[in-house]
């Protein structure tokens, strides 16, 4: 004898899974609404485009906006070519063997290391040994190392998902391996690569510990890559932790959430247009 009939098992399963999904969505929504509700009132033209005053108690957040823009950009400028290059080399130019397995295992391990370790490394190596000091460059390079494993692995997966037959066709039409990579493999792997890039940007934008360690927390606009910068995440971390201004901390957080939303929407829109043209 069954305790519960299959029909009821089915109903319970749908109920439980649905409830889990709903709970997840509600928690996310609650956080976003909570931060936006507290922060949106603060946001105005002056808040976005003027310098902070009195350690951030008054004034705006313009330098941290620029810092949040520049730091991930610099990290990507370094990590993207290196990561995509490595992934292409591992998938297209080498045969599967012990060496590729070791490299893959290494990148997987690196991906799991807490960001503070990268921060510590960046502090010791870039800031101290290379005498860069706390600056945009040291921060960017540290974040680049941090996101490199993610970019390599997502790009690799994306490249592997490109049908082998496309490569065969390309070779049979007289393409070199390089031409095949550039004209067939990478364009078709692009959606996956972009996903990895988005994840990486998210990690860079959200990072505080590693950034404070390497890029510092200066509140003025950087004039070169050797100037210290503060990102929005670092800014509201400090505002909240030091008890400087909860209002401005929420305001900054709201700006951060909105910018990430905008970034995602634009990227998906561009991706859709790109894929739409090809299929």
């Amino acid at each position: 004898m069954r305790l519960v009939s299959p029909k009821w098992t089915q109903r319970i399963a749908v109920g439980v899974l649905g409830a889990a999904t709903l709970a997840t969505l509600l928690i996310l929504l609650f956080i976003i609404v909570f931060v936006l509700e507290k922060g949106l009132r603060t946001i105005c033209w002056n808040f976005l485009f003027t310098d902070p005053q009195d350690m951030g108690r008054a004034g705006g957040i313009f330098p941290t906006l620029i810092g949040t823009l520049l730091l991930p950009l610099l990290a990507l400028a370094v990590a993207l070519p290196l990561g995509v290059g490595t992934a292409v080399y591992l998938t297209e130019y080498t045969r599967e063997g012990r060496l590729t397995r070791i490299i893959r295992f290494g990148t997987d391990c690196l991906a799991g290391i807490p960001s503070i370790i990268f921060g510590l490394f960046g502090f010791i190596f870039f800031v101290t040994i290379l005498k860069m000091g706390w600056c945009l460059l040291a921060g960017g390079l540290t974040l680049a190392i941090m996101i490199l494993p993610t970019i390599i692995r997502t790009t690799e997966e994306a490249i592997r998902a490109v049908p082998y037959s496309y490569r065969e066709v390309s070779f049979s039409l007289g393409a070199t391996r390089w031409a095949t990579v550039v004209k067939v493999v990478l364009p078709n792997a692009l959606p996956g690569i972009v996903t990895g890039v988005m994840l990486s940007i998210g990690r860079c934008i959200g990072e505080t510990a590693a950034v404070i360690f390497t890029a510092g927390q200066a509140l003025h606009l950087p004039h070169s890559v050797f100037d210290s910068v503060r990102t929005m995440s670092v800014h509201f971390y400090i505002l909240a932790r030091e008890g400087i201004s909860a209002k401005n901390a929420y305001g900054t957080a709201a700006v951060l959430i909105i910018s990430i939303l905008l970034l995602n929407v634009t990227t998906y829109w561009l991706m859709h247009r790109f894929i739409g043209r090809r299929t």
Partner: protein
Amino acid sequence: MTAEIKFSVRRLCAFHGRAESLRSITLDVPDHRILGIIGPASSGKTTFLRTLNRLNDLIPDFRATGQVLLDSADIYQPDFDVVGLRKRVGMVFALPVPLPMSIHDNITYGPRLAGVRDRQQLYDIVERTLQAAFLWDEVKDRLHSSALRLSGGQQQRLCLARVLAMEPEVVLLDEPCSGLDPISTAKIEEALVALKIRYSIILVTNNTKQASRVADDTAFFLMGELVEHGLTEQIFTVPRDQRTGDYITGRFG
């Protein structure tokens, strides 16, 4: 069979790891004729075809011995230009594989790789090759829409046009009609017969009737061996080998 010889294969053996997939094949492929290759599954037909444009090179632990001469030059010489070889010897695969780009870009893929940039010239290539593949009338109004939206039969004719766009000397076809309906098949066959004026064509097929319809010469492969090779009429009417006769009358395979 006094035509000029395009491919001259001498004692060709091929191995996948330890397994021998071709056993000492010796065969001449004349120019401006269609050679049909028939034989049951895993008889080495496809492997043989892929040794002719060295596409087997992509498979790990593939090895070939013997000689394959294209216009008297051995394509398995270490310094032979493989990329150049594949431009001279085009291939149509069993499953049509349009690249995920427009019809126009699919066809001009080869020419663009070869450095053709002029738009009018590229357009002329598209029109000429689509005409030759009997596809022009069906797609002339949507050259810039995705090739993935074509039907299977249209995709395969697109693949043929794409090969012709490289202006090859030899066209290899690996069971090009295996997934197609009879009408698409007829169109492909019609195109092939029209094309042999300009090219040397090698057609691997599982369909013996197709070989008897379009091939001038026919070769019968069995378990990696070339059992018999001759004029198509002769193979289909008075086969010299018992096994050939058994296969084409459908007694096995």
